[in-house]
């Protein structure tokens, strides 16, 4: 009897401790970058980026501690960690869904060796002795053009790697622009070798009219924002512009998201999200922030098999070390997919993680054979009030 009471008390205490840890979780703030794994670029304007990169068997290249320094301003952290946390491929003919990151991995031997011609003018960085990451600076056209001949051309830092999975290839590219924008893109190329038996599930290719199977890729980007020094005080705002009933005007509504949510795009209210710091401000006393510019819409379907994690576009959660893969997450003390990560935790002034699902459908065509010309899917993270005026 006594023993069981002690056991129960011990269990309750363990739960309490675990819950406290759970509520307060944040990414360790003192991670150091292994020697040789830093990437940094200072542009002629003085604007600069620096970050750390690493390779994991599953996610492939993972970026961490991404800092932006606007020209003549303070260097501040934007992201604690950023990765492609899952690619789910659904085939139009109903053949088995694949989870590329967890079933095959973007790293390991699937991570491609890049030769110099694939990284012209850049530097190919090594992992385990192999050249796997291209780091290259490119001119990027206008930053702005305005009256009185005011004009500026800009540059960007591109960081990309390639992963080959069952002959299809994914080029994962992070572009860091001189003006603070981050463009994230996945390019699909390689060889499409699935064949369907029914023409409605694909497209006839080659002179033999083989039916190349259509497919949908759901890219799940995991973006652990850690704005400025304190990584435990980020706030997510949802901003909407609600049209009047006659649709002649729109009224802005700003809402702080206090608990984890799963949300979908609704073009009619122009909904978007930004992650801002609770305390750090720009020179005009505005909270510094980054917003998600996610315009992919026409192919943003909700999947073929009623999966909960495909029913939303954006998942906003509190950092939890065990929440790593958007789907097929190992489930010890953790949800198995991103829809389960959304379980009511507070995200107001916490370490927040943004999970973005970007959908791309491919209907193969003769030109894709082969290899398929690259098709890019992308989104943007844009500084909002990071500086009080245009720093360039």
């Amino acid at each position: 009897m006594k023993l069981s009471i002690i056991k129960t008390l011990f269990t309750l205490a363990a739960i309490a401790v675990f819950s406290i840890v759970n509520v307060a979780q944040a990414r360790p703030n003192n991670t150091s970058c292994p020697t040789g794994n830093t990437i940094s670029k200072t542009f002629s304007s003085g604007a600069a980026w620096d970050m750390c990169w690493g390779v994991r068997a599953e996610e492939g290249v993972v970026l961490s501690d991404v800092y932006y320094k606007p020209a003549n301003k303070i260097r501040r952290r934007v992201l604690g960690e950023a990765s492609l946390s899952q690619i789910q491929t659904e085939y139009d003919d109903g053949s088995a869904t694949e989870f590329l990151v967890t079933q095959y991995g973007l790293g390991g031997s699937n991570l491609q060796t890049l030769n110099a011609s694939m990284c012209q003018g850049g530097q190919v960085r090594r992992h385990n002795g192999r050249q796997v990451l291209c780091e290259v600076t490119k001119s990027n056209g206008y930053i702005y053009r305005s009256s009185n001949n005011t004009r500026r051309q800009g540059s960007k830092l591109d960081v990309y790697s390639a992963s080959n999975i069952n002959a299809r290839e994914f080029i994962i590219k992070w572009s860091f622009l001189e003006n603070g924008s981050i463009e994230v893109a996945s390019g699909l190329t390689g060889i499409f070798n699935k064949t369907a038996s029914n023409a409605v599930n694909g497209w006839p290719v080659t002179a033999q009219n083989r039916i190349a199977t259509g497919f949908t890729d759901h890219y799940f980007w995991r973006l652990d924002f850690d704005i400025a020094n304190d990584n435990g005080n980020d706030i997510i705002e949802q901003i909407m512009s609600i049209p009047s009933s006659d649709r002649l005007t729109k009224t802005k509504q700003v809402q702080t998201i206090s608990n984890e949510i799963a949300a979908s795009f609704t073009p009619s209210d122009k909904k978007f999200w930004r992650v801002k710091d609770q305390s750090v401000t720009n020179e005009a006393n505005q909270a510094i922030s980054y917003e998600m510019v996610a315009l992919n819409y026409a192919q943003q379907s909700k999947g073929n098999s009623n999966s909960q994690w495909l029913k939303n576009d954006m998942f906003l959660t509190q950092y939890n070390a065990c929440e790593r893969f958007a789907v097929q997450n190992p489930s010890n003390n953790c949800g198995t997919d991103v829809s389960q990560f959304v379980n009511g935790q507070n995200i107001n002034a916490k370490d927040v993680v943004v999970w973005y699902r970007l959908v791309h459908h491919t209907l193969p065509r003769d030109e894709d054979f082969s290899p398929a010309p690259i098709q890019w899917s992308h989104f943007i993270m844009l500084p909002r009030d990071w500086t009080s005026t245009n720093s360039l």
Partner: protein
Amino acid sequence: MKMKIRVLHRLITTIGSSIDNYLNNLNAFLRVAVSLLLLILFQTPFASVNAAENCSDEFYIDETLPSGARWDMCWEHRIREGITLSHVYFTPKGGIRRMILNQAAVAQIHVPYDDNGTRFHDLSDFGIGGQNLLDLNADECPSGTIYPISYVFENQSFTKNGLCKQIKQDDIGFKSASNSERSHYLSLFNVSPVGAYYYIPTWKFMDNGTIEPWMGATGALQRFSQEENRGWKMGDNRIGIAHIHNFFWKLDFDLNKTHLDDVVEEVNFVLSNGKRNRQTTTFNIEAARKVNPDTMRHWRISDKSARNSNGHNISYDILLNETGHQDIGPASEPFTANDFHVTKQRSQEKFASHNTSGARNLAEFVNGENIADDDIVIWAGITFYHMPRSEDAPHMDVHWSKMSIVPRDLTAKNVLNNVTQTNSAPQLTSISDQNNQLNISVSLNVQASDVNGDVLTYSASGLPTGLSINANTGQILGNPNQSGNFSVQVNVSDGQTSSSTQFTWSIGSGNNNSDDSGGGSLNLFVLLFLSLFIWAKSRLRIRFYV
């Protein structure tokens, strides 16, 4: 140009007067007719000197990209539409030169503000050409060529460095392991200030046949408010008013130059029992349509007769992927209600809204006209919603919008691939000897891979009777109906080479039926489960007590 005409005139006058001597009884009317005839005759050899068949040299762009693909087209400057393109031809590397677009132009930039203080129709009401076309500095067209643009405004002649042509490249056009090529494209842009905004209409023509119309917007914010819920309070304490940019393009496709045999269809991928079934609807009359994420809708324009060497009709897909800011405006702006329109080509239908002659806007252009076997025009729109931020002052960085026009079966294969991949034989995972019982169903998956990504075909010989192999999946299925030892060979072929593996398949007689052998494996399973349970219990005691 003027010089040329003057010389011609003199020539014609001289010839005309000598003819006059011979034909002095001809009246003035006839003389003019003869002069005109001679003018045409003389102009023909002049014109044939030009490479261009549809415009004079100075308006002709003919670019063969480093990868071997060629784009050629004519450009024209108009006061309202700015730079328009015509006779746009694509020649795939080693392929046939075909017309893609007869005309391509920006068709409107519609900018309603959230406070309804103004709703600009920049193209029709102000224009992005003429006085609203920027004279570019050389540094604004790095590594490019600038074409001069001449026009007359209020009886004054202007020449500006207006149109920038650049050849650009991307690191990876396609890649499959070590086989990778860069991609190149022809880029054409100009800059058009309209008020405080500077628009950058840009056309990208890729070496793989893709066309991307882009629109950049930069300059400075145009309007400010006192009400914070109409926009964003900026670092300088002004409230920049949020606004929409509805960008429209007019695309007159004439695939393979035949303008009366293009077919426009809508493609939907309809979900049914876990599958996506491609459903195609052909438009026989004018139509206005929206994107649909649920069916991942796109549109396709194909030529009825021209085919690639696989026998597939040449076509282009219209992809409006970046429609996340789609905005359906008030009833007074019905042209915003849809993303994609197909109409019968009418030259007076120029602007998606505030059209100056004939029907007034896109919604009115779509008025039930038959388009089967007629000249069709595609109107497509992309929206950008701009919520200002502090970074937008004093100068606003460019924000870009684009749509994609992607070839489908224009060529029979990826013609830019230079590597004839040496074919490797498929690899077959060896199969251990199998034991099964009579009349008990069997399922065995044969596993194979192919580094070239070829489609694999499976076959088998010597299978126990009652079993068969699925040629596409490699799965062996069935009920063995004869006992004995069978020597099985499984083959996998990539169409050129094949691999095989052998194993022995023993089928036990029906007497020792499933009870015994099944029981054995069940015991093993129970044992495994029990040991797992005991282990788990010892490791995770707390959780079990809870």
